[in-house]
């Protein structure tokens, strides 16, 4: 087991090397230039040349890359070039990361809370109208792009709607139900979290529902369920204690894999709702060509995924000796 973990961990630096090399090359050779964004129209060639020299951007690629890696290994991931000029990248990420993790956790809980019961019902009521309805809703939810949901849900829930029915001489107002686009982000214990978390949870709901449904259907056809029923157990006991618990195992795996995604913020959701998390930071950094921030975020997300995969594999290995040898 130790050998297995070690072998997996030894791959990590190799992976990080390639990811960092590619990301760094994209930053250096990609179109646009952070100094150009910083100086905008006032770009005086003398100033550009000076800043390029002082930052070492005039050095050959391998030197720049080596400098970056040397600093990064000492824990210095550079400073923001444009967007938050001179702020250490580490500090910027340290501020954004908790926000994104919190929002993602809310989204995952929402996804579990909605997806698992839906999948359970759909599995129990397989091929009935209720199953079809749930599957239809889930597919619709996952198929609507976030870029569409953001403005539509915001319009529906965070504006006042004046409804006038001229024929009946009726006039009344509804809303705003959720005050999310006024003022700034207030943390997850405010009503502002509901829409972004809900939109982020749609994908999770879909995965959970489908997995739970498939799991229930599979487990319910197992022999031991028939045995349980045959020995006269109450249906509630059969479903909750025998069937559901087994159907939940793959859900746990999916959750494990999602932990890696915790640190990755959604560009679209965070920017639309003004959530000052990793997604917003990455978005700003990309557009400003603030590539030390981009680098650090890419590496962070890579490490998170590697570790969450490792944890899942280790758990599997513990459960199933066949995997350990693979």
């Amino acid at each position, binding site marked *: 087991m130790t050998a297995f973990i070690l072998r997996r961990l030894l791959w990590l630096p190799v992976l990080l090397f390639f990811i960092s090399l590619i990301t760094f090359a994209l930053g250096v050779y990609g*179109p*646009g230039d952070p*100094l*150009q*964004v*910083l*100086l*905008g*129209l*006032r*770009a*005086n*060639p*003398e*100033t550009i040349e*000076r800043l390029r*020299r*002082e930052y070492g951007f005039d050095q050959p690629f391998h030197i720049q890359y080596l400098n970056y890696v040397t600093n990064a290994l000492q824990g210095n991931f550079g400073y923001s070039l*444009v*967007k*938050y*000029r*001179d*702020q*250490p990248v580490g*500090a910027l990420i340290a*501020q954004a990361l908790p926000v994104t993790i919190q929002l993602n956790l809310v989204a995952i809980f*929402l996804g579990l*809370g*909605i997806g698992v*019961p*839906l999948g*359970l*019902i759909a599995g*129990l*009521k397989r*091929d*009935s109208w209720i199953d079809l309805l749930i599957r239809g809703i889930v597919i619709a939810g996952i198929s609507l792009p976030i870029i569409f949901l953001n403005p539509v849900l915001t319009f529906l829930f965070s504006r006042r709607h004046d409804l006038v029915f001229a024929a009946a001489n009726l006039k009344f107002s509804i809303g705003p139900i*959720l005050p999310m*686009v*006024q*003022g*700034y*982000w*207030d*943390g997850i*214990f*405010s*009503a502002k*979290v*509901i829409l972004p978390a809900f939109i982020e949870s749609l994908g999770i709901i879909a995965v959970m529902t489908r997995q739970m449904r498939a799991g229930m259907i599979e487990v*319910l056809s197992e022999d031991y369920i*028939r045995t349980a029923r045959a020995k006269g157990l109450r*249906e*509630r006991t059969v*479903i909750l204690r025998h069937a559901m618990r087994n159907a939940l195992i793959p859900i746990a795996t999916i959750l494990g894999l999602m932990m890696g995604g915790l640190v990755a913020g959604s560009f679209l959701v965070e920017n639309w709702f*003004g959530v*000052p998390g990793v997604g917003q930071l990455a978005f700003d950094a990309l*557009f400003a*060509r603030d590539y030390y921030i981009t680098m650090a975020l890419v590496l962070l997300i890579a490490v998170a995924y590697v570790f969450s995969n490792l944890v899942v594999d280790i758990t599997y290995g513990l459960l199933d000796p066949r995997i350990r040898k693979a």
Partner: protein
Amino acid sequence: MSNSENTGGNRWLIGIIVILLVALCGAVCVGGGVLYFLMQPGSSPLAQPAPGFGATPPAPGKQPTARAPVAPSRNILRLPGGTDPRTLDPAQVNDTNAGEYVAEIFSGLVMLDQNLKVVPDIAEKWDVSEDRKTYTFYLRKEVKFHDGRPVTAQDFKYSIERVANPATLSPTAENYLGDIIGVREKLSRKAAEVSGVQVVDDYTVKITIDAPKSYFLAKLTFPTAYIVDKNNVERGGRTWTDKPNGTGPFKLKEYVRAQRIILAKNENYYGESKPKLDEVQFILSGGSAMTMYENGDLESVYVTISDIERVSDPNSPLNKQLFIGPSLSTGFIVFNTRKPPFDDPKVRQAFALAIDRQKVIDVVYRKMPLVASTILPPGMPGYAEPANKLTYDPAKAKQLLAESKYAGKLPDITWTTIGAGGSAAQNVQVMAGMLKDNLGARVSIQQTDDASFFNTIDDPTKNPYQMFDVGWAADYVDPQNFLDILFRSTSTQNWASYGNPEVDKLLDQAALEKDSTTRFKLYQQAEQLILTDAPVIPFSHSREYWLTKPYVKGMIYPPIIIPRLKYVSIER
């Protein structure tokens, strides 16, 4: 196992699950709502914001918050802050967003007053030598940093040396201080000290510049030349602006990234206009500023195009709170005069007459900006009503095109514009359509992101764009800032690759001219020559639209960075 076998046994189960599901959704909504109200500032100890790189750790209990209704007794102004400023370091400021805060926290030898005139600030007066190359500034003796330390000439010297230190990485050093002798040398590591700044005594400092330049004082009003505290900078390291120790009318009280910036009154401010507000809160990010204003959560707000119609309606109560001011900027449509067909002035003139700019501004921009007929914006000294207003004239345009060397064989044209998404900016589309209708020109639109765009137009000799649109706003209040920088043949911001020896000669004369009336005349002559050659079409002068609550007095919306909050008071 078939479905029907199950149904009878667990109908209750499904029922319970459905109820749980509904309850969960309800709990989330209600719980969120309850928590939302609990989170209202002051009502709950939970209301602690996450610590950011705030200037001071937030004090429990008296947390000022944007949404909070403020007791009338408190003298607090709440403004929309937009996105986070890039920096609060005067040496790093190169946009108005950051400049707005820095101009309140710090100050310099000279400043611009409400009429955009250069007036004494930390320097109480100055002398200019006979050759107009040496300026001697006499500093006020009562000026102190926020921490109480007196400001002397050495502090000014230190601040300039710091900007000129290449390790400071200032993006504005050349543009604003490059005229001072020794600054460029120090920036390129050829000198250790700026020889052009000399401390005569504790309260006298002498600055020498490389040539007589009438706009030099105007440049000194920019944050690059502001005074910073050596101890503050050296002890604070790279993030010293988390706790800036300035000299300005306000101090930084709190900064929480993406949430708020709070400035507090500097009780010991030396200036004649003492700050009257206890606090100014800038609300960063966060959606609809207009809604916040209407809910009474902001004292002032900019008006966007989506609200302009109802605000402009004379019957609206908001109309009485509306302020419209110039912004000292001009939007241009630029022709690359090295690329066919724009190497022929007749084609450029034809294009200029074939676009109905008034219509575009009326329809697409709902009349918010003014139609431009000049390069200099109104409000800029030297601005004169144009003789020739470049009025829309499709017949004349056709005629000019027929006289050009591209008559009947106009090549396809690409108009490059900043933007992303399925459809380009409406204004560009409309104007391309006008060129097609009036001249039969085939203009396709190419969108690009701003980083690539600036990178490309930065080098006029290599710029492949045929035609593009770009705006220019004043950095300092002098016609030189538009005409010399954008149209001198050797300038790097000469986007059109325009070159006219006569214009260059006039610009040289103007730069050296002592008498301002003659000087502005020379600039006007140069402007007329440029407009006739039409390397650009002046398109619009944008305007500032702001709403302000009637109980706020003294609020101004200057088109350029000036310290302005000290003039504001709240009188309910």
